[in-house]
C-alpha cells in the first residue's frame, strides 16, 4: 500500500501509510488502541474505501477488485463472529459456500481443517459449547477454507489463556512453514516477538518504526533494563540518573536502561525491590508510543 489515508468524520485515522509484505513472510502491525491498525486491515480487504493512496492485495487493485483479491485471502477477526446457528462442521461448510467452493471439495477439506484446529471430536458441537480457545481455532480454520495465500489476523490471541495461546502460536508457525503469508495486528509484544519476521509499529495513524524484532530492539533501545520500586525510590532515582543513560518513571516504578546496569544494582538500598532483565520489544514500543494510557 502507498500513501494510504482514511478519515472518519474529519478525524484522520490513517495518515499516509506505506507498507509492503513479501510472500511467505509473517508480518506484524503493532500499535496501541486506536492507532489505526484495524482500519488499515479493513482498507487492505477493500471493506472500506481509502480517501487517498493505493492498495494492492495479491496483485489486485483494491478496492476496485477487492472481491477477486479476497478469494485468495483468509481473515481472523478480532472478535469471533462464528455462526451460532450452526455446529462446528457446518460453520466450515457454510463458509466454504461463500467462496463458491464446490460441495465435494469442501467435504474433503473439512476433516483436515478440523484436525488442524484440534476440533475433530467436536465437529457436531454447538458454537456456544466451545471454549474461547476452541472458538479462536475454529475461526482460524474457517479462514483457511479457501486455502488462502495470505491470512490476516486481528489480535489472534487476545483473551486466551497461556495454553490456548501457545497452541494458536504453534498453528500460526505451521502456516508460515507451509509458505502462507501472515499479517497480524497485535499489541501483545511477546506474540509479535515470537512469530513475526518483520514488524511495523503504528501510532496515531502513522508508521513510526519498522524492521525485524531484534533489529528494532538493537536500534531503539539499550540492551539492559532495571525496574525498581519501593520506599525511597524517588531519592534513588536522582542518583540513578547519573549512572544510567536513560531513566524513566511510570507511577511508582523507575525504569533504567543501559549497556551495563550492575553499578545501579550495587547502588540500591535494601528497601528497594528490583527486576533486572534484557530489553524487550515492549520497551521499544513504550519508548516510541509513550507510556500514556490509550482509551
Amino acid at each position, binding site marked *: 500500500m502507498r500513501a494510504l489515508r482514511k478519515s472518519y468524520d474529519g478525524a484522520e485515522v490513517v495518515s499516509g501509510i506505506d507498507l509492503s509484505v513479501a510472500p511467505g513472510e509473517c508480518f506484524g502491525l503493532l500499535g496501541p488502541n486506536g492507532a489505526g491498525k484495524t482500519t488499515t486491515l479493513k482498507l487492505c480487504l477493500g471493506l472500506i474505501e481509502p480517501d487517498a493512496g493505493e492498495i494492492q492485495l495479491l496483485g489486485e487493485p483494491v478496492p476496485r477488485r477487492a472481491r477477486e483479491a479476497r478469494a485468495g485471502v483468509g481473515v481472523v477477526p478480532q472478535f469471533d463472529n462464528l455462526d451460532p446457528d450452526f455446529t462446528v462442521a457446518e460453520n466450515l461448510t457454510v463458509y466454504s*459456500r*461463500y467462496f463458491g467452493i464446490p460441495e465435494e471439495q469442501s467435504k474433503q477439506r473439512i476433516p483436515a481443517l478440523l484436525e488442524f484446529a484440534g476440533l475433530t471430536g467436536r465437529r457436531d458441537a454447538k458454537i456456544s459449547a466451545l471454549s474461547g480457545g476452541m472458538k479462536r481455532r475454529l475461526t482460524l480454520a474457517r479462514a483457511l477454507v479457501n486455502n488462502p495465500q495470505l491470512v490476516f489476523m486481528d489480535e489472534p490471541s487476545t483473551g486466551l489463556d497461556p495454553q490456548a495461546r501457545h497452541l494458536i502460536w504453534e498453528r500460526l508457525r505451521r502456516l508460515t512453514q507451509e509458505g502462507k503469508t501472515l499479517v497480524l495486528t497485535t499489541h501483545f509484544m511477546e506474540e509479535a516477538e515470537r512469530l513475526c519476521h518483520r514488524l511495523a509499529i503504528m501510532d496515531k495513524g502513522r508508521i513510526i518504526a519498522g524492521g525485524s524484532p531484534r533489529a528494532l530492539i538493537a536500534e531503539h533501545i539499550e540492551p539492559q533494563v532495571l525496574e525498581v520500586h519501593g520506599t525511597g525510590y524517588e531519592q534513588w532515582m536522582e542518583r540513578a540518573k547519573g549512572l544510567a543513560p536513560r531513566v524513566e518513571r511510570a507511577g511508582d516504578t523507575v525504569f533504567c536502561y543501559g549497556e551495563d546496569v550492575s553499578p545501579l544494582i550495587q547502588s540500591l538500598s535494601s528497601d528497594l525491590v528490583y527486576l533486572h532483565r534484557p530489553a524487550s520489544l515492549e520497551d521499544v514500543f513504550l519508548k516510541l508510543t509513550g507510556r500514556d494510557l490509550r482509551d
Partner: protein
Amino acid sequence: MRWIAVWRRNFLVRRKLFAAAVLSNLADPLIMLFGLGYGLGALLPSVAGMSYMAFFAAGQLCTATMFTASFESMFSGFARMQGQKTWDAILYAPLTIDDIVAGEIVWAASKAWLTGSTILGVVLVFGLASSPWVLLALPAAFFVGLAFSAMGLVMCVLARGWDFFSYYMTLVMTPMMMISGVFFPAEQLPAPLLVVAKALPLYHGVQIVRPLVAGGPPPDLLLHLAVLLGYAAAGYAAAIYFARKRFAS
C-alpha cells in the same frame, strides 16, 4: 449469483426447525381466520359475492405473508447483522454488501411465501376456493413477500436498536392492514383513505389474491403486480444504499 450462498445459509438454519416454522406460520393466522371468520361470518353471510370466510381468508393470506416477510427481514435480519455479526463474517469472503442484501431479501420473501402457501393449504382443505385459479396465489404470495422483505430490510439497515422496528410496525404495518381491504372491502373507506390504501402494497396483494380465491382472473393484474414489484425494487435499492453507508463506517 453469489447471493444464493446467503440464501442457503438462512435456509439451512430454517430447515432444522422446519416443523416448528410451519406450525408458527400457521398458528397466528389460523386463530385470526377462524376467530374472526366464524364470528363475523355468522353475521355477514356474504361479502362481495363470496362467503365472509373466503373473503377474509384471501386478505389473511396476504397479511400473514406481509408479517412473515417483515419480521424475518427486520428482526432476524438485524440479529444476523448486529447481534451475531454474521454479515461481517460474510464480507471477508468474496461477497459484497449488495450480495448480502439481495440474499436476505429473497430469503425473507421465500419464508413469507411458505407462510402464504400454508394458508393457501388451509383455504383448499376447508373448501374456501372454487377453482384452480386459486393456485396462482402461490406466485402472488411470493411477490407480496418480496415487496415487504425489501421494505423490512431497509428498516433493518437503518435501525440503531430493536425499538426502531416498533415504529414501523405501529405506524406503517398495522394501519396498512386496517385499510387494505383485509377485513372489509377497501371501497367502504372514506375516499381519501382509499387513495392512501391504493398507494400501499398490501392493498394490491389483496386485489390479486381475492379474485383468485373467488375463482377468476384478477382485474388489473399487471397494475397490481407493478406496484408490488415497484416496492420491491425501490426497497432493494434503498436497502443497498443504506447498507453500504452503514458498513462504510
